[in-house]
């Protein structure tokens, strides 16, 4: 029996679905006494409750649709706690809802988290769980925010009407959280809505898309009558609310555009100039090349002769020990850390969903809706997790379009970090203009074609906007740290594999041969030096190694060549990890087409850009 929480799955983003994670997961004990499922609408504080109960980290973001896999943790007495994606009901409108439905219906007991701010919306799911006769308790969260808005909730009455324990809480401050587990023993079946069929019959009715609207309608009326009895507005008239004002402001297209540009400029300054320039100069040159690499070379040299092939493989130019240390800790670590802090801040303040609304009209033209901004932005973090998160999209058609666009046109954070750093060398703003312009053109072209070719019609946007909130630093930092550590754990072995591959090829002469074989592409098509072949070989192992390799070569290249190489790598094949996930999520045929398509597009556009830059002398 264990009373300590067991780490099972700390970051749903990095899991490839089907329970397989990059993160080594600890085993769940075999003698589970009870499975408890945490359920609730998006953005009601479910993940904070999960953390408080298990003492663990899950991704808490102020954006519906970011928990795509099911994080699990242990509670005292061998009870398993499962978190679920936020849903508005037990239905199956998206993959995400399907996952939640399965978990809720198979749980022994349900902890339903509802927001005191939006009981009318939230109690639909609560009542539905009661109607399915699952033993449950209700956690009434965000009580402080409701009080601030002048909402009064009669908790004892709500408890009596529902027939299940109701625990008022303020999850972010921890208030009421210690009452949850003790109350769990009192979990009850509750009072079904008026004229509710038995759970079996209800399931049959609500599984039928043509008939469920009727029972949904009765439940809606029942829930509305509950809310009328329980909730009262104390003071009339709206208070001034900064959150509200900001929320409105960011829905303005002009503000959206200006803020978007500002967000990118700050990213460029912080990640591109300060971190990639000043900090990396310190970590890579002073720390790694000045101290660590010479020490490694000396150590290896004291055991193996410095002119032997083994020495070259271990500590040479592409050495497994030297280059890995230099890239992973000298270059990638500071860049990734900076990028993840930034994305986490944007995620947590409620800015992203508003951007989704503003982008909806544009995304409609490429067969997607605003919701696709979620995987797209996550794609800038990691294409692997973004591909999994396409599950928040409602139709298979949208998932296909989004996965292909992600794999081809969205560079991942590790890559972006390197791109941002190299852009300063490639000619600053002008280079950025060409880079972003090209990627956008390809995205639009690709999306338009897919939208025309694929059968069916994409669905319209229906997105619930969470309030704008001040991001909680503790949460942002914890999330950043976990993501960075998981990234390094995933990246390091592949990086070592990559440098092993390249240095073995160097020692055996295969590298020169490959460089020569790829000459038609590198030299003739892309107008790059033949050594650029290294970049592409490494890029296949992981996208960002290609970028990192380019960093290495950059002093031998002109600005135009750096830009061409950057663009080609950005469009180039997704890394091994993301390709595996694409295979799993989208099937072999679609993945093979994506892979071949990305090669064709990458080299074609690379060649075009090289010529464009030469002819116009733009840089």
């Amino acid at each position, binding site marked *: 029996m264990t009373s300590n929480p067991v780490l099972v799955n700390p970051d749903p983003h990095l899991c490839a679905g089907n329970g397989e994670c990059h993160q080594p997961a600890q085993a769940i004990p075999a003698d589970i006494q009870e499975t408890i499922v945490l359920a609730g609408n998006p953005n009601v504080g479910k993940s904070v409750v999960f953390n408080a109960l298990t003492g663990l980290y899950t991704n808490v973001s102020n954006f519906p649709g970011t928990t795509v896999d099911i994080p699990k943790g242990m509670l005292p007495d061998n009870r398993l706690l499962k978190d679920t994606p936020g849903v508005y009901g037990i239905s199956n409108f998206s993959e995400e809802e399907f996952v939640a439905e399965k978990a809720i219906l198979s749980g022994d007991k349900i902890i339903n988290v509802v927001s005191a701010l939006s009981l009318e919306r939230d109690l639909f799911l609560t009542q539905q769980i009661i109607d399915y006769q699952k033993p449950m308790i209700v956690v009434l969260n965000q009580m402080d925010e409701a009080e601030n808005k002048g909402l009064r909730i009669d908790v004892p009455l709500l408890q009596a009407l529902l027939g299940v324990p109701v625990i008022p809480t303020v999850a972010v401050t921890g208030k009421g959280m210690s009452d949850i587990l003790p109350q769990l023993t009192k979990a009850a079946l509750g009072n079904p809505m008026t004229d509710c069929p038995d759970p079996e019959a209800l399931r049959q009715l609500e599984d039928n898309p043509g008939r469920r*609207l009727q029972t949904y309608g009765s439940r809606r009326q029942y829930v509305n009558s509950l809310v009328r009895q329980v909730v009262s507005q104390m003071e009339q008239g709206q208070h001034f609310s900064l959150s509200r004002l900001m929320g409105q402001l960011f829905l303005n297209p002009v503000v959206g555009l200006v803020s978007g540009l500002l967000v990118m400029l700050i990213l460029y300054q912080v990640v591109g100039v300060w971190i990639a320039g000043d900090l990396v100069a310190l970590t890579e040159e002073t720390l790694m090349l000045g101290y660590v690499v010479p020490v490694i070379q000396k150590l290896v040299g004291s055991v193996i002769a410095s002119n032997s092939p083994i020495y070259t493989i271990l500590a040479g130019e592409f050495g497994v020990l030297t280059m890995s240390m230099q890239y992973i800790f000298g270059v990638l670590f500071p860049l990734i850390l900076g990028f993840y802090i930034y994305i986490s801040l944007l995620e947590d303040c409620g800015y992203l969903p508003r951007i*989704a609304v*503003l982008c*909806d009209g544009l995304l409609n033209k490429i067969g997607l809706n605003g919701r696709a901004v979620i995987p797209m932005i996550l794609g800038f973090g990691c294409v692997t997790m973004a591909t999994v998160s396409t599950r928040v999209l409602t139709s298979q058609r949208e998932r296909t379009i989004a996965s292909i666009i992600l794999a081809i046109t969205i560079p991942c954070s590790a890559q972006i970090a390197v791109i941002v750093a190299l852009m300063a060398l490639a000619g600053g703003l002008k280079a950025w203009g060409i880079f972003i312009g090209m990627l956008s053109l390809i995205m639009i072209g690709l999306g338009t074609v897919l939208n025309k070719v694929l059968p069916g019609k994409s669905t319209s*946007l*229906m*997105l*619930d906007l969470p309030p704008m909130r001040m991001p909680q630093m503790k949460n942002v930092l914890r999330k950043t740290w976990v993501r960075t550590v998981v990234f390094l754990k995933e990246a390091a072995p592949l990086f070592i594999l990559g440098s092993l591959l390249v240095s073995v090829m160097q020692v055996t002469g295969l590298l020169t041969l490959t460089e020569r074989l790829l000459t038609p592409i590198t030299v003739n098509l892309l107008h790059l030096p033949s050594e650029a072949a290294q970049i592409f070989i490494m890029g296949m192992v992981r996208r960002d190694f290609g970028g990192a390799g380019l960093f290495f070569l950059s002093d031998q290249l002109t600005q135009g060549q750096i830009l061409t190489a950057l663009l080609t790598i950005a469009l180039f094949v997704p890394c091994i990890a993301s390709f595996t996930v694409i295979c799993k999520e989208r099937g072999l045929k679609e993945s093979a087409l994506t892979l071949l398509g990305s090669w064709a597009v990458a080299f074609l556009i690379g060649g075009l850009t090289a010529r464009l830059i030469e002819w116009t002398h733009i840089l």
Partner: protein
Amino acid sequence: MPTLNDLKSGETAMIKEILDLDAATQAIRMGIAAGETITCIAKVPAGPTVVQHGGMELALGRDLCQKIEVVRQ
């Protein structure tokens, strides 16, 4: 009959009918259904309409708004 697309920011209206079964089924779970009163709080040009109802803000795509008939209040 005016639709959600015809509402301006600040206008309040009652939903008459949602002419799309899937959308109606999804929306009723969140409290948006025929007979409910909503307030339009933002309108993106050639884009979605954002409505407020029961402490919730919901953005609805343009195509969908075309299928939601309303009566201004």
